[in-house]
């Protein structure tokens, strides 16, 4: 092939560990056959040999190149099979694709992050990246909601974040249980109680479509401008190269032009929350 890399051919990666995060969500720890770099917020196509592939934003630190963590919610055909994998098998990785979070544009600002459900996976990678550059940031606030306490992923992450200078982390649940003593309500309700300097701030939203929609509307209500809000969009990204057409969102290919967009960029495109 003229020495050129075949863009359709996945890089093999050995699955070394499967971490059960919640009843529906597992984290897959992968060791790629060669070092693999990505920018936080970019996504990969992760495949099960002979079965299929699906797009995921790695949940691990972009500073680590010899190990990759991908957090997967069991929600369809491919992810259901992924959840049955055991360490030792090889998975396939294509990518990284698209445009991630422009971390340098956050410098000198407060970063308000709103996450829901499995949307904390890309956010965890972003948090690692922000921790690395925290001297350049004013403050980082994470507001995260899960359906129930059991559905919350990365539970130890919250205490850890609260112990880091400039970082604050808050949790809520849609529905509590006998042990839950924290706030109850959907993720955007946490925004009522955060102290943030809106004019010198950016907001990041990642989660299920319904939360993305109402979370964004809430953030706009707080006074954020369209261009201050960064959304990690989810569509049916397949080729990852802006060619196959499955992730078209109006004039944009989510896989190539995104998946991270400012609200300003996409607000006029059709069906952005579907």
């Amino acid at each position: 092939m003229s020495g050129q890399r075949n863009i359709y051919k996945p890089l093999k990666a050995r699955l070394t560990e499967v971490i059960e995060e919640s009843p529906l969500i597992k984290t897959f720890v992968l060791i790629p056959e060669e070092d693999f770099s990505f920018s936080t917020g970019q996504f990969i196509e992760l495949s099960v040999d002979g079965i299929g592939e699906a797009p995921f934003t790695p949940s691990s630190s972009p500073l680590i190149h010899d190990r990759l963590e991908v957090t997967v919610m069991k929600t369809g055909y491919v992810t259901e099979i992924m959840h049955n994998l055991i360490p030792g098998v090889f998975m396939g990785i294509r990518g990284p694709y698209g445009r991630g979070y422009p971390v340098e544009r956050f410098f000198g600002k407060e970063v308000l992050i709103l996450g829901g459900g499995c949307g904390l996976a890309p956010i965890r990678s972003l948090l690692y990246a922000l921790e690395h550059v925290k001297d350049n940031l004013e403050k980082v606030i994470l507001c995260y909601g899960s359906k129930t306490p059991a559905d919350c992923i990365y539970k130890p992450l919250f205490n850890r974040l609260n112990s880091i200078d400039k970082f604050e982390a808050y949790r809520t649940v849609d529905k509590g249980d006998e042990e839950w003593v924290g706030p109850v309500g959907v993720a955007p309700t946490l925004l009522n109680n955060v102290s943030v300097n809106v004019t010198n701030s950016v907001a990041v939203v990642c989660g299920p479509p319904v939360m993305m929609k109402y979370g964004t509307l809430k953030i706009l209500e707080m006074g954020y401008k369209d261009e201050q809000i960064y959304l990690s969009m989810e569509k049916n990204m397949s080729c990852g190269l802006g060619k196959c057409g499955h992730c078209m969102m109006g004039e944009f290919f989510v896989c190539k032009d995104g998946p991270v967009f400012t609200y300003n960029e996409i607000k006029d495109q059709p069906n952005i929350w579907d």
Partner: protein
Amino acid sequence: MRYNSITKKKWDKVILDLLSSHDVFAPVSSEHGHDYKYIAVSDIEAIVYNEPKPVTPLKNFFLPVKENVTGERIGERPRIIIGPPNCDVEALALLDEIYLGSDFNDIFYRKRRENTIIIGSDCIGKQEHCHCTSYGIRPYPTTIADLGLIIIEGIVYLRIITQKGEDFLNKIESSHECKEEEILSLIEREHSATEALLAETNKGLPDYKRTGEIVSLAGKEIWLKYSSKCVSCGACATICPTCSCFLLIDKPGFEKVKQLDACQYPGFERVAGGEDSLFRLHNRFRNRYMCKYIWKPQKFRPVACTGCGRCIDACIGKINKNELFMELARTAL
């Protein structure tokens, strides 16, 4: 434009000689119309020249319906494709932008493009629904193809378009440069006659430069009206010379098969969680028009339609894109 000429009899001998070193494809007639065939010795005299619009669009030579894109390609002979009309040739300009762009160089597409000599055909007359001129496209190739071919009174005239085409002609001893003014004006008259015929037949169609604007102004009612006859068969996209969306299918050994796909099929944009922004039929129907006349032009060339009219020919619901545009143009006034 420079031309070489060769008698039809000698041209047939040229093709015969090429068969030993090249895969030659050209249209021949059947009860279904004329379409490309892998040319064997016995087919040479049956090749149909200068008939507009073979059934299959040229794209299928470069984007097969299905192919393994992770394996090595070995032993492919050089190809010559005779007969594509200019609506198909012009479509390659868009496909080249998509598949040979600086950020994405599809090695399978590129190798096929490099490996192929395209001898485009000048259309004499028109087929039903041909309307290339309404998109500013001439019914004879002057770019992208390597040569343009027209037969007049038993003589094959080959218009030189690319260096590859010229190199090909230089190897044919029996072809000669044609400088006779009388012949050149005869060819021009054939071109003009077809252009005039196409212009006359399609005079109600809106200026293609306005198609994006009138599609963007169209209300939901018109999409509901025209999509009411759509059965999501995807024939329009399958037969379109510029539609090139695809699906990747995983096979054991981390192999991938790329298969042409269409936004008209249900589930095209459905994600694992069930959300599907093209769930409703009229949204899928509208999506194709938005893509061709607004989104693709924003990213690539002016319009992603070359006026071949195959989508109208192929539609089992008898949805006529040109009628839709005339209605849109009337309501946009």
